[in-house]
């Protein structure tokens, strides 16, 4: 926690510098006007959406054992959405003008601007998760049965809403006809497929940390259900990647310039080539581990999760955002690398997300295992074992 707090302070300091001197403290240029901040934002929206992969088995397929972990997924969604909102805020040239977006004083360009849709869906998703997790934790704290109609409808809404947050974020890019690297229907499809790999990967790793560091035992079943979901999603993701590569490289078109830059370099510039091939290697390693019995053992599964998470992070970040700007619409190739200050701000936000998540767990875990409750003198009225007696 101390390390995380220190990293957050380092990030705050770096951002203060950016606030004073402007975005020149980043590596961004007129040619590449979106970089690390938006890349991390895009990736994290996907991770937030993946909480739905816990909700669906628990509530639609009624797998009782998933109920013990849905809360952790929802709390992670909250922490991750906060990170997304921070990443967008630090990217703005004038964050103090965000009220320009809020009517009646401001002007909200809805429905024309996809960014306005994104503001609605991201904040809505945050509120949904805050309500559901807050209500259920509160009921558990008060030792009473939660009333179904106060949370079940919201849970089902959150399933559709989770898909929408990542689709809308994808549409931010897909709608831009001037950038042919982004202007095609595989972008939202790959967004969702890769999100349902990266999110569960993070959750599998987090659940093991929770097992080890808290007095809350998470069984193997939720973890291996997530493994199955990850495997299917990764197969789809890699298939779609194959479709993308075939389409871009089979015929030598001008449209494919960005893809050529990313995978092979363009006109002597190959800044991203090592990154994308590392991502490819990590993705294939992850896929190979997932579809073979190697990932049935927890060590192999952990390697697969780490490989997929990092590989997809690279792909969605450097592999999606930056090539959209290279070459520019007028054919210029200007490369981009985040500056030190920019990297420190990113680190600060990641640390903040981890810190917020730990704070939430410090409260949620004692509530969930019954230690923290409104009336500690009374013996536990609700039994958590098997979760059969206690809905969610």
């Amino acid at each position, binding site marked *: 926690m101390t390390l995380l*707090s220190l990293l957050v*302070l380092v990030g*705050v*300091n770096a951002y*203060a*510098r950016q606030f*004073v*001197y*402007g*975005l*020149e403290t980043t590596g*961004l240029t*007129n040619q590449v*006007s*979106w970089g690390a901040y938006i890349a991390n934002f895009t990736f994290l929206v996907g991770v937030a959406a993946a909480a739905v992969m816990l909700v669906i088995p628990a509530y639609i397929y009624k*797998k009782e*054992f998933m109920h*013990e972990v849905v809360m952790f997924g929802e709390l992670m969604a909250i922490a991750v959405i906060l990170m997304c909102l921070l990443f967008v805020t630090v*990217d*703005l*040239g*004038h*964050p*103090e*003008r965000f009220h*320009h977006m809020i009517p009646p004083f*401001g*002007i*909200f*360009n809805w429905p024309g*601007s*996809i*960014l*306005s849709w994104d503001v609605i869906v991201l904040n809505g998703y945050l509120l949904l998760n805050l309500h559901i997790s807050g209500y259920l934790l509160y009921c558990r704290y008060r030792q009473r049965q939660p009333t179904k109609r106060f949370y079940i409808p919201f849970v089902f809404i959150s399933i559709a809403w989770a898909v929408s947050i990542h689709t809308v974020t994808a549409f*931010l890019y897909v709608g*831009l*006809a*001037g950038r042919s690297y982004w202007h095609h229907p595989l972008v939202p499809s790959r967004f969702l497929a890769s999100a349902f790999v990266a999110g569960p990967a993070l959750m599998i790793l987090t659940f093991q940390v929770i097992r080890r560091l808290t*007095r809350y*035992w998470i*069984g193997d079943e939720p973890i291996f259900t997530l493994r199955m979901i990850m495997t299917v999603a990764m197969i789809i993701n890699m298939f779609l990647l194959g479709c993308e590569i075939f389409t871009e490289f089979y015929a030598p078109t001008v449209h494919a*310039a960005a893809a050529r830059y990313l995978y092979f370099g363009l006109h002597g510039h190959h800044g991203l080539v090592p990154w994308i091939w590392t991502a490819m290697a990590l993705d294939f390693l992850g896929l190979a581990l997932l579809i073979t019995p190697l990932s049935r053992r927890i060590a192999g599964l952990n390697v697969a999760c780490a490989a997929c998470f990092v590989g997809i992070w690279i792909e969605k970040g450097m592999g999606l955002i930056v090539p*959209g*700007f290279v*070459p520019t*619409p*007028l*054919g*210029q190739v200007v490369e981009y690398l985040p500056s030190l200050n920019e990297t420190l701000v990113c680190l600060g936000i990641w640390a903040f997300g981890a810190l917020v998540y730990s704070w939430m767990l410090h409260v949620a875990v*004692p509530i969930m*295992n*019954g*230690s923290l*409750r409104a009336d*500690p003198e009374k013996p*536990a009225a609700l*039994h*958590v*074992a*098997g979760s059969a007696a206690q809905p969610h």
Partner: protein
Amino acid sequence: MSAPIQANDATPKTLTEVYRPVTRRTFLKGTAAAMAGMAGLVAALKPLLALARGELTLDTLLQKHYRELTPPELERILKSLEAKCKKEYGVRPTIRAPQPLEGVQFAYALNLGRCVGCRKCAHACLKENNQSRDSADDIEMSYIRVLELEKGEINLETSTPYYNPEQVPQPGKYYMPVQCHQCRESPCTKVCPVQATWQELDGVITVDYNWCIGCRYCMAACPYDARRFNYHKPKLTPEAINRNQSYLSNRIRPKGVVEKCTFCLHRTREGKYPACLEVCPTGARVFGNLLDPDSEINYILKNKRVYILKEDVGTHPRFYYFFEK
């Protein structure tokens, strides 16, 4: 699937942990940690001390969108902007807010047969519009990028704006200046989340620099690389500043906002030509009113071989390229 799960239940141990009382020791530790945290936060925020006074005022935060300003409010804002420029750059400009002319729809045409790639237009743009520049040769923020292409090539990927031969035009090359096309179906105005950029009645797409939040979505959306962002406070020497300014076009921008070509509306709404056209030595540029049947621009569109850059993107621009014959 139905094997018994290890019970996650309260035990005396967990209860003691959660409900352990606050001792003098824990109180002191907590207070020390909180104070260290606060000290750390204050230290982290130290760079904010450098924020120039007057950069962030309640007035600027509460300023409404340009299109919602009443005339007296606009007057007051123009005066305060003039004072601000004097304070920050040492030069007091005159900032006006010229309205679109009645019965006017601007359009621009460029004769590719005549452009020799001298870049006088790009330099004139900078002198006229007060963009940030590190030196007199720094044309990065000019609204005009002149591309050098091989004759016979239309693929922009083969173009370069960085050509620097002894003489232009180079044999076998042709030159294509690109600036904001003030598109009729502009992607930039569509994507702006706060409508800080919009199309005026005479066709010019403008930016309210005091409303823009600096998200740069419009820059991502533009198919012509026409917009520029102020990554830092504009650097300008007092001699370089053009004092005839207008709110929506060439006043000196704050940092953190987007800017673009406005067809020099502070000139063209008063009957003059844009600066790029005035300076062009070969007469390659044609500018005028589409609604005037006798205008030169209408003659060009009716009689010359005219085409549109990136027509497939569907922007319907007001900027046309043509060949003499």
